[in-house]
């Protein structure tokens, strides 16, 4: 099946700054793909080119097989992080407005949204606003979905219910691209794309992306002393419960630092987390 979204050698320069540098990937129907990267890594500029909101300096963006334009954008569903709702309109008016824009009949309001159909969006709790944003973005049966941190701030059970909804869209045949900072959201995706410093530096499962980066776990009764000693030695140290982690470092080096400071500890090498991999990439 052909891709619903594709970047081929996609490049964008702003003056002397290269925001996106030779990025190639695709999102196929039925897939949920996560796009990860630090702020400034180039995620937003990539999305804006894929949606046809800005032109690439080099390379090509494909939306549903063609160059993105008004026609292909009608077959797209987009939920931005700010949700993109009209807060001074009612729930029903928001659904009607977006249905009209896509030339489809307005969706029937169900569940928790039904009793609040005539309330102003600004008066609703954030959780209900998010449900409404999904209804408004999905009612025209889009072939491609672009979601920006779709479950940020949502409690775990409600978040799982939203992922049900997203998965149902994928099973119906939509290709889904999720941009996120959350490792939990990353875990809900079939495949991840990792951007750093304007380039695509990895593509695959979480396990594949962290392969090659190791962390050292330091377990000790006196974690504060271990933490102090390693920080003073200039290591990239983080706290994990009451144990201390050092990213991308030989355990022997860590043992030497701790021994030098008189700290008794058990030092083991463990796989790095995705977050630690990203920190190592931009260090």
């Amino acid at each position, binding site marked *: 099946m052909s891709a619903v979204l594709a970047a081929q050698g996609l490049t964008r320069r702003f003056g002397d700054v290269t925001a996106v540098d030779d990025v190639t990937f695709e999102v196929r129907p039925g897939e*949920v793909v996560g796009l*990860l*990267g*630090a*702020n*400034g*890594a180039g995620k937003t500029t990539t999305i804006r080119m894929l949606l046809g909101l800005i032109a690439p300096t080099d390379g090509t963006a494909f939306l549903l097989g063609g160059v993105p334009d008004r026609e292909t954008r009608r077959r797209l569903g987009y939920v931005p992080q700010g949700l993109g709702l009209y807060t001074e309109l009612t729930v029903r008016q928001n659904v009607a407005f977006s249905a009209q824009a896509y030339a489809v009949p307005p969706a029937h309001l169900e569940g928790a949204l039904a009793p609040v159909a005539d309330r102003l969006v600004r008066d609703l*709790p*954030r*959780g209900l606003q998010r449900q409404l944003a999904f209804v408004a973005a999905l009612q025209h049966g889009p072939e491609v979905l672009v979601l920006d941190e779709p479950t*940020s*701030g*949502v*409690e*775990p*059970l*409600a*978040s*799982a*219910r939203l*992922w*049900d909804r997203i*998965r149902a869209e994928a099973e119906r045949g939509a290709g889904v691209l999720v941009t996120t*900072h*959350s*490792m*939990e959201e990353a*875990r*809900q*995706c*079939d495949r991840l794309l990792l951007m750093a410093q304007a380039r695509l530096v990895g593509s695959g499962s979480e396990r594949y992306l962290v392969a090659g980066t190791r962390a050292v776990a330091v377990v000790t009764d006196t*974690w*504060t002393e271990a*933490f*102090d000693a390693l*920080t003073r030695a200039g290591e*990239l*140290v*983080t*706290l*994990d*419960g*009451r144990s201390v982690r050092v*990213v991308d470092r030989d355990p022997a080096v860590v043992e030497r630092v701790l021994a030098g400071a008189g700290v008794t500890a058990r030092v083991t090498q463990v796989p790095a987390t*995705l*977050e*630690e991999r*990203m*920190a190592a990439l*931009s260090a």
Partner: protein
Amino acid sequence: MTYGLESVTVRLGGTTALSDVSLDIPPGQVTAVVGGDGAGKSTLLRTLVGEVVVDAGVLRIPEPTGVGYLAAGAGSWKDLTVDQNVAFVGGSYGLSREAVADRGGRLLERAGLTAARGRLAGQLSGGMRTKLGYVLAMLHQPRLLVLDEPSTGVDPVSRVELWRLISETAADGAAVVLSTTYLDEAERTASVLLLSEGRGLLAGAPDELIAGMPGVITRVGSPTRPEYAWRRGAAFHEWWPDGRPTDGDGVEADLSDVSIVAELGRRVHAGSRS
């Protein structure tokens, strides 16, 4: 001493924002308050800094000058430079100019903001602004540091740096309490309180909470009882309260699973099944 709340209830404008909530915040470690939007996380933290008055219960907090606070999404003045922010906040705590220069300089360096000292706070990236807010909250060496969603909107790389700062503060002996919606982040704290609709649903060390989860969880392609199942990637996790699954392979629960189980358990208890 261990700071915290005992059986605290807060009513705000006719609704109960917190109901009989208790939490210990010991020095030298990081304590997390987790839950979704509207669960009561901010209200709880604001009782600790005196911004919200409690209707019942006991607060154990230091005198106001012993508390540092980073409010959600803010913490600095956009139209002032980084240095001006530090000078202004230091002055408001009554610190001498020398103390501000000395301690402020060291904190900015630890936060990686030395090169940004002349820039306007409003022009910093989200991660840098959060770190500046952190520096400002720490200027007067508080014994209790209260951080409201410090990592929301902060990218993963800045988040690692932020955690390094938070860890250092705890290692120096301060009691640190923070709220977060990221459960993987809560897993690295010493102790977690899970709030749901203003009530404490679970409390304890992440490992203990995971070990103490009732029943077992399996990974299944399609759930036998959808009301006990939730999404995990392309598959589902399903909870078997009696520990006797009829389908699927057992999986090791994480804090997210444990929170969902607690919420499901609460709903089953309350007689609602959605």
